């Protein structure tokens, strides 16, 4: 199967273009935009880990190593498209327009973190594995019914492909030819379970074959490959040509979450040879005279400022209100729920 789904790359680890057909499509603006967003989400990610260590937010699942997959795919979307992420895709969410303060709030146990900016079609991160895949198919189906050109992208991991919802979602996407991008980040592990134990199949891309969904396997650490392959799939979807599956092969640099210890299950040295996707783009920039120290320094200062003020805003956010337990469950809360709320607020003493 691997020979049917060769790993597509546009640049190598040293940042050399190996597919010259893209030479004209890659300009300085694009490169800087990709670099900016990857740096931005990495800074967020590292900050979140350190906040968790200091007890300032809850358990956090880092995405370091997957920046190219998340940024390359999110930047291939248009503003009215739909994004259905998992808990590990806050990088894609931030790139597509989630607010950073709310993203911190999410990891601090606040439902406010699930609320997207007005007009943005960003679903809350799915925690139950693979459950978001049918949602993305449904939202895309709705766009198709409404006759728009909008599409939906579903993010999911390698482990997610074992769940029924993955297969059911793919089949629906295929049967109804919905404009859905099934974007898989194969980071080699589902918590501790390596992909060889998760599946006997050699690739994830081949799973699309059973549903007649055009599927590709790409180097998920090559941000150009991610960006251009996602673009192609998006264009097909907008043109009414149905769903696509993208297997972006990547690597989770850190632990599954801050509560996890990968040394329990990962062989020493595994992943050491993976060139970090940001470093890879850096190499490209240096090779092509796009490396501009002044721009980098300015960008880094701006990003640090952005992350710090988002953090400050999170910490100064008004505390969670007990009323919020009750107020958003129904449009019109039944009287028994209103009574539960009133008597609880009476007990704890209203502010």
């Amino acid at each position, binding site marked *: 199967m691997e020979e049917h789904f060769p790993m597509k790359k546009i640049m190598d680890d040293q940042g050399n273009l190996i597919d010259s057909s893209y030479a004209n499509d890659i300009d300085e603006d694009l490169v800087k935009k990709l670099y900016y967003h990857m740096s931005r989400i990495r800074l967020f990610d590292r900050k979140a880990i350190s906040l968790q260590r200091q007890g300032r937010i*809850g*358990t956090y699942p880092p995405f370091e190593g997957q920046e190219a997959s998340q940024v390359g795919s999110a930047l291939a979307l248009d503003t009215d498209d739909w994004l259905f992420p998992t*808990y590990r895709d806050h990088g894609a969410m931030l790139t597509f327009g989630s607010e950073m303060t709310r993203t911190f709030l999410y990891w*601090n*146990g*606040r*439902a406010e*973190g699930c609320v997207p900016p007005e007009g943005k079609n960003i679903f809350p991160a799915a*925690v*139950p*594995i693979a459950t978001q895949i049918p949602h993305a198919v449904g939202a895309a189906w709705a766009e198709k019914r409404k006759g728009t050109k909008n599409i939906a992208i579903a993010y999911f991991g390698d*482990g*997610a492909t*074992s*769940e*029924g*919802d993955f297969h059911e979602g793919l089949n629906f996407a295929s049967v109804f030819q919905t404009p859905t991008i099934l974007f898989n980040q194969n980071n080699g592990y*589902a*918590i*501790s*379970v390596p992909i060889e*134990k*998760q*599946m006997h199949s050699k690739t994830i891309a081949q799973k699309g074959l059973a549903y007649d969904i055009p599927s590709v396997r790409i180097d998920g650490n090559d941000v150009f490959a991610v960006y251009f392959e996602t673009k192609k799939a998006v264009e097909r979807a907008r043109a009414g040509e149905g769903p696509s599956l993208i297997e972006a092969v990547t690597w989770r640099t850190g632990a599954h979450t801050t*509560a*996890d210890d990968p040394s*329990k*299950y990962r062989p020493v040295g595994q992943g050491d040879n993976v060139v970090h996707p940001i470093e890879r783009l850096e190499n490209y920039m240096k090779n092509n005279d796009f490396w501009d120290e002044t721009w980098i320094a300015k960008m880094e200062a701006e990003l640090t400022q952005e992350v710090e003020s988002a953090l400050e805003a999170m910490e100064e956010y008004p*505390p*969670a209100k*007990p009323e*919020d*337990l*009750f107020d958003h*469950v129904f449009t019109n809360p039944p009287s*028994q*729920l209103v009574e*539960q*709320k009133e008597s*609880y607020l009476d*007990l*704890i003493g209203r502010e």
Partner: protein
Amino acid sequence: MNVKMEKQSEQKQTTHQLTMVQAVSDAMKTMLEIDDTTLLLGEDIGKNGGVFRATEGLQELFGEDRVVDTPLSEAGIVGTAVGLAVNGFKPVVEMQFMGFVYPAYDQIMTHVSRLRMKTMGRFSVPMVIRTPYGAGIRAPEIHSDSAETIFTHMPGIKVVCPATPYDAKGLLIAAIEDPDPVIFMEPMRSYRAQREEVPTGKYTVEIGKGEKIQEGTDVTIIAWGAMVPVAMQAAKQAEERGMSCEVLDLKTLYPLDRDLIAESVQKTGRAVIVHEAHGTGGLGNDILSVINDTSFLYLRAPIERVTGFDVPVPFFALEEHYLPSPKRILQSIEKVVHF
């Protein structure tokens, strides 16, 4: 084999200090040693030893064929466990968190619970489904559900929920030995809260029996799992205000220990039922009907229930407001005592 047996009978005399999660682990280890047909299935239970370390070291001891890291599929785990169970094995499966058991609902509801009945006993499903449950550890969304009534409502399944290390080990061994399916709920908040002397080797705690863990005269407080220490706290505060509480730890949620409940409520004439699952459709209602059926004429006050509210278990910033607190329990104790 002989050496092992000898070692075991010798171990029977001794005890060791264990947390609940260690006691759970010890139960599985004990049964893996005694019975070759016992096998463990679950996500991350092998090499990683489980996300709570409940199966720590077991794969090294018993091999990958008996302590199996499965693909990420709850329906797959429970469904294949049915096949294994009807064909000679005793699967003890782990659902990583109770909020992730839902994909397996179909398998449990439509097969695990009724295979014995529909084959008139020809096939039975001797399976244990272990699952950490409950809120209060600042876990991410969906990691804090307490879904016992989904299972107490399914005829054909027993539901067990220990509150202490000793009971956890004894009940889990009893569950593994039970010829029928058992849901085994582990209060993750209590996993490491307390250490207790736990016998080495095999012993059982009877499924279907609760325990009076504090003697009292004015009111019966009924709880299980993670709510037991909370109920005890409330009982202590009530005591300081001159109200004497009898506290029951139910331990098994189906079948209920009707005799224990009746005996206590007939003595005190008052009851406060505490559980962290939502009130509507909660097990408190079944307990209420046990009291109604057995002890109505002994009651001196309407029965109170202190439960999670009728809202989805919230993100952790609000979980302390969701969970029954000593304050809420105390309010109900006062209400029934001063009725």
